[in-house]
């Protein structure tokens, strides 16, 4: 049970993120929902590489031999970097929308539908 705790948290975070995206009407909140989803996925990947009692996979002055897997950490880091770019782009979109429409409620985003 305890070993599966990270995965339970992943599912909970994932659902929170999805619910935020679907239910909220404010663009910033929707974008935060995406960030929460990203965190869920990152947590999922990094907990895949966890080994009970392992140390950080750094070789300098390593006391033991059991280390957690480095690859998932590299993947997570890459995914975090991409997440930063994603959030920056989404937030700049929100700024443009706010400047043009004076609101960031998605109710105002209906101009594409004729």
């Amino acid at each position, binding site marked *: 049970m305890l070993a599966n705790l990270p995965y339970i948290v992943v599912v909970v975070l994932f659902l929170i993120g999805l619910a935020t995206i679907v239910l909220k009407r404010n663009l910033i909140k929707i974008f935060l929902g995406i960030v929460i989803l990203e965190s869920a996925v990152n947590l999922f990947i990094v907990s895949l590489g966890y080994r009970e009692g392992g140390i950080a996979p750094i070789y300098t002055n390593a006391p033991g031999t059991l280390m957690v897997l480095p690859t998932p950490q590299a993947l997570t880091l890459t995914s975090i970097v991409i997440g930063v770019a994603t959030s920056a782009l989404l937030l700049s979109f929100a700024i443009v929308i706010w400047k043009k429409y004076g609101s960031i409620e998605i109710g105002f985003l209906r101009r*594409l539908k004729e």
Partner: protein
Amino acid sequence: MITSFIVENSPALMVIVPFIAAFVAPLTGRVAPAVRAWIVGGAMAITSAITLLLASDVYAHGTRLYVFGAQAATQTIAPDSGGIPVRIMFTVDPMSALMLVITAVLAFAVVLYSLTSERDHTGLGSYYTLFLLMVTGILGMVSTGDIFNFFVFLEILSIASAGLIAFRIDGGIAVEAAIKYFVLSTLGALAVLIAIGIYYGQYNALNMALIAQRMQYTLLDQVALVLIVAALAMKCGAVPMHFWTPDAYSMAPSSITALLVVASQASLYGLFRAVFTLYNVTLNAACIGWLLIVLGVLSMVVGVTMAIPQKNVKRLMAYHAISQTGYMLLGVGVGLAVLGNQSFLSAFGYVAMEGGIFHIINHAMYKGLLFLTAGAIFFRIGTYDLNRMGGLGHSMKWTMVFFIIGALAIAGIPPFNGYASKLMIYESVFAFNPILSVIAMVVSILTLASFVKVFHSIFMGPVLPEYKDVKEVPRPMLIGMGILALVVIAFGLFPSIVVDTLVAPAAHALADQGMYIATVIGGGA
């Protein structure tokens, strides 16, 4: 010596060159915009040349491997790695090479076109940076052999294209389209990432060949398959997830829309790669095959019926793009549905797959051409509204000729390339299930009807007073469109040569999973 160096390192160079140019271009733009134009154009020309060299090499000598950071480029398994391919590698097999050819030709035509069409806009430094990053993303996506690397290039592509869709803010509407596109593609990319996590957790591998070799098709793998298929089908605009397509395609600058078409084909490539290379016969081929077929038929029918009432010419073309994507899904889906049954496969399965893959390359060419003509019309008269157009055939003769070529090709009229690939799909699908073939033909007829209407309202009729002074578009734009038109005609006139040399090896490489694994890991499955 220099040639052999370029050929040897072409998989890396084709990504390096646009990448460097992407970040040098904005700097030079401050000094002199003309220098920037030469750098962007030159970089794209070099990239296309390298890509074509690589593709011809692949077709001549078989799959090319390029392992980044290894001692030698073909050393897939490092000596100290315990027999596992740990490094990121590019695996360029004939299917990837075909996608590379498409990207190279279209991106070169588009860059020629957009050097003129975007001349008078601001923010061109960022425009070319994002443009070249988008090309990098597509090239990387179609040639990588590492599934996490695929995700990275997918995100590079998404971020660059979202920025470009919003590029002409257009009072905020373009940004709305970009938000829609980007939220969806981020969700899709996260789904792909979860699937990657599932593979890694089960098989301790990120290399596609190694995952394919170890594939067990457990329940978790089915979850991963659903995630990947859903995400990539969304990215390529198949019907239940198509609603971002018309918005994004219509609001992006036309040159970018042409490139977005290739981007969606690259997602389609990712979908086929996942289904055929990662899973192949381990999955329930008939079930997944029928899933692709249903997606395809839905896309064809819904796309074309939504296209007919559109008033905005680019929205109309975007719906047709959805409908044409359906043909590819149908063709390859039929191939997948009979996978594992060798007699069916050689009777009509391979032909169906070849038809679907041939349609990818044809669609990229004629749809790119059509979007570029729409952009040319917008360049001169400043509107996409069909009701406000008319009589342009008198002044924009070349644009009209290119539009006719594109429209006849998309409707599947001989002797253009759309006819060749659609005929292959009709024939092979008829052997599989006649009803599907009939639906495909009806959709094709509706496409023709729709384009006849569009052609009439844009080019026919008397010269409208407000467009009295409209001139033909500048020559670089015409050359860009001309390249695509030439390809459309050439592929239509000599389809058998193209199919034999380009498409058939691609289809066989896609279907043959054992070969792929053997090339990368050695030994075979």
